[in-house]
């Protein structure tokens, strides 16, 4: 290359760059398209939470004007917020995609798993069996998740394409190095992959992007009045599944939820944030103490996170 071209190359065109959100978006779209190209039967793991809604939104962009070529797979604990289910069904209709529901209740009825007992019993751990069963029976070879590397230490080393063995397990020591943008999804039959298109996003990036794109998310994320019970340091919503303990009172509070999971254990926080702009503001201020005042028994607030560790995402 002569020196004229070289100087052209390094100087003139510097106005052509992406800002960080555009770059994250572009990377995620690239990964979603690789999934489509390299696998036979991929699905998006859809929990109804903001991360999986974001992934679905990105998939829509990736394949426009075609419809999203992936089914949404929802592992249903049976203990849902009615709002989550309605949101899911509306989204599926809007996007014209297929919905696959793996039901924890079915897994319990079939004797695949046993319901936990005791005061803090949840169906979180049970979901993993249901998920792996659904993956197997639907012959899914890649499950796309909304996991992010900033969520916890162990995830910091997760790949975009994460290899699972025949038993659906993740072996951190046996992951393929990922260089440049070259993704290796080669797999034998029976094995499946997890793909994480938003690996490089932080929680703040997710909220900023949701706000920028004005992505619709369940009303539960916004501050609203609700009947709740104070338990384990957070506000648990009243539902048909909730059994009041001694000394607990039902109160009406203005709250919102930061993560959405099983209704029996998802705790809300008191908040006035009823717009995306206010949520972005609240989350950035709150990050100071989000985990700081998490006590051991705050199982509710971390419900989603714990599930991810165990292999849900």
């Amino acid at each position, binding site marked *: *290359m002569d020196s004229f*071209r070289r100087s*052209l*190359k*390094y*100087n*003139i065109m*510097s*106005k*052509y*760059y*992406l*800002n*960080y*959100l*555009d*770059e*994250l*978006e*572009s*990377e995620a*779209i*690239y990964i979603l*398209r690789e999934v*489509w*190209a390299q696998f036979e039967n991929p699905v998006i793991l859809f929990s109804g939470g903001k991360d999986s809604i974001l992934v679905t939104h990105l998939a829509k*962009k*990736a394949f*426009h*004007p*075609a*419809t999203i070529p992936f089914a949404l797979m929802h592992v249903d604990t049976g203990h849902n917020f009615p709002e989550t289910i309605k949101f899911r069904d509306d989204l599926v209709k809007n996007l014209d995609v297929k919905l696959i529901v793996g039901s924890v209740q079915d897994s319990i009825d079939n004797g695949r798993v046993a319901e936990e007992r005791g005061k803090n019993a949840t169906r979180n751990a049970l979901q993993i069996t249901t998920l792996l069963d659904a993956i197997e029976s639907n012959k899914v070879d890649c499950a796309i998740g909304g996991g992010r*590397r*900033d969520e916890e230490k162990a995830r*910091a080393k997760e790949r975009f394409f994460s290899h699972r063995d025949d038993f659906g397990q993740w072996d*951190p020591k046996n*992951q*393929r*190095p*990922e*260089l*440049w*943008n*070259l993704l*290796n999804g080669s*797999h*034998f039959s029976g094995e499946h992959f997890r793909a994480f298109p938003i690996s*490089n996003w*932080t929680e*703040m*990036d997710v909220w*900023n992007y949701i*706000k*920028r794109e004005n992505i619709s998310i369940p009303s539960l994320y916004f501050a609203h009045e609700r009947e709740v019970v104070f338990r384990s340091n957070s506000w648990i919503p009243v539902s048909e599944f909730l059994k009041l303990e001694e000394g607990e009172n039902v109160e009406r509070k203005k709250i919102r939820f930061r993560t959405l999971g099983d209704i029996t254990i998802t705790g809300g926080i008191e908040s006035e944030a009823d717009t995306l702009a206010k949520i*972005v503001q609240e989350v950035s201020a709150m*990050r100071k*103490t*989000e*985990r*700081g005042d998490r006590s051991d028994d705050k199982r509710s607030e971390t419900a989603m996170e714990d599930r991810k560790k165990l292999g849900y995402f």
Partner: protein
Amino acid sequence: MFYPFYNGAKGERNKLMEINNNQLLRFTTAGSVDDGKSTLIGRLLFDSKSIFEDQLDAVSNTSKKKGYDGVDLALFTDGLKDEREQGITIDVAYRYFTTPKRKFIIADTPGHIQYTRNMVTGASTANAAVILIDARHGVIEQTKRHSFIASLLNIPHLIVCINKMDLVGFSEDVYNKIINQFEEFSSKLLMKDVRFIPISALLGDNVVNRSKNMDWYQEGTLLSTLETLHISSDINKIDARFPVQTVLRPQSKVYRDYRGYAGRVASGIYRIQDEVAVLPSGFTSRIKSINSGEQEVEEAYAPMSISMTLEDDIDISRGDMIVKKNNQPEMAQEFDVMLCWLNNDSAKPRAKYKIIHTSKEERAIIKEVVYKMDINLFERDSEDKNLDMNDIARVKIRTTRRLMLDTYRDNRNTGSIILIDENTNETVAAGMVI
């Protein structure tokens, strides 16, 4: 013994910015064991107020248990440290922080045994490499290795941090001597942008905050350097390359006959009505429309993910490349690459591998090992032809079909390949086209 000061005032977390035009910078860190890499990363995160309170509490507690007065900053990255001590998984871990100027991704590669493999992995997407030198020891073998890899991977910016300046009396002389040592050997390497910064990761001098002990150093701190590196031109903007990932064919009536070619622009700029050639077939056409998501746009540039339609009906599929008619890559079936071997199983002579280049997948054999690099001495070894884990060698590759290639120096995205062992499906090697 010094300890970093943590004077009770919990670092208030950064007010994270709203949407803006900040860029993303990816960097990798390298240093030999005990040069202070973990401390440096901890210091960067801590002083840029990227640490959560609970993380801080946890680390304070552990520090106390270990007998520290303050906070052992190295503990913020302890996940990898434990592993290193136990000698198990060596890997790349990614960490994130944001300042009002940029978002950063650190590819943190713990260094020893499988170092080459890890650093190559972390370096492959990095805009910058931060290399640590212990001021007491100056340039050592490891420094040369790391610099060699940074140059081999064509990392655009290299920042050499001379650490532990507090242990050499913050001496300008020591600093200058080390710069001389470095420049002596690095003149053999191809590097565009090299900077030196005297720091103390432990005390925080010149990491985020300017040092009060080294007024002889007037340039930027490490963070301000990372915040202001000019990275817009790290991507090749001249040679337009668009590898097709997949073809979009909507089923709806409105879009009958629509064929959108989807992919991520590898380099260069595309505009509507540009004359393009489709490789390998060579057919030419013009760009009819460009889409970024649902939005129609006039132009697209790297690294945007887009889809485009062409004026003419041409048979195009995944693995094809759309380029400008007057600027085409080389099409070759036999070519030389610098190969880094990444797997425990050594290379098998004349064995077939799957090769991935952009969105194209073919099969390949390693025809010949031309020479191996001794990365400590920067010397070539033409005798030893074995390729084992962490080896770097110049090899001749032959593929079943032609690939559309640029040299890696010109274009990281179209000059890189990986090899996959078809028996295990593992990624066994990474190569850079010469």
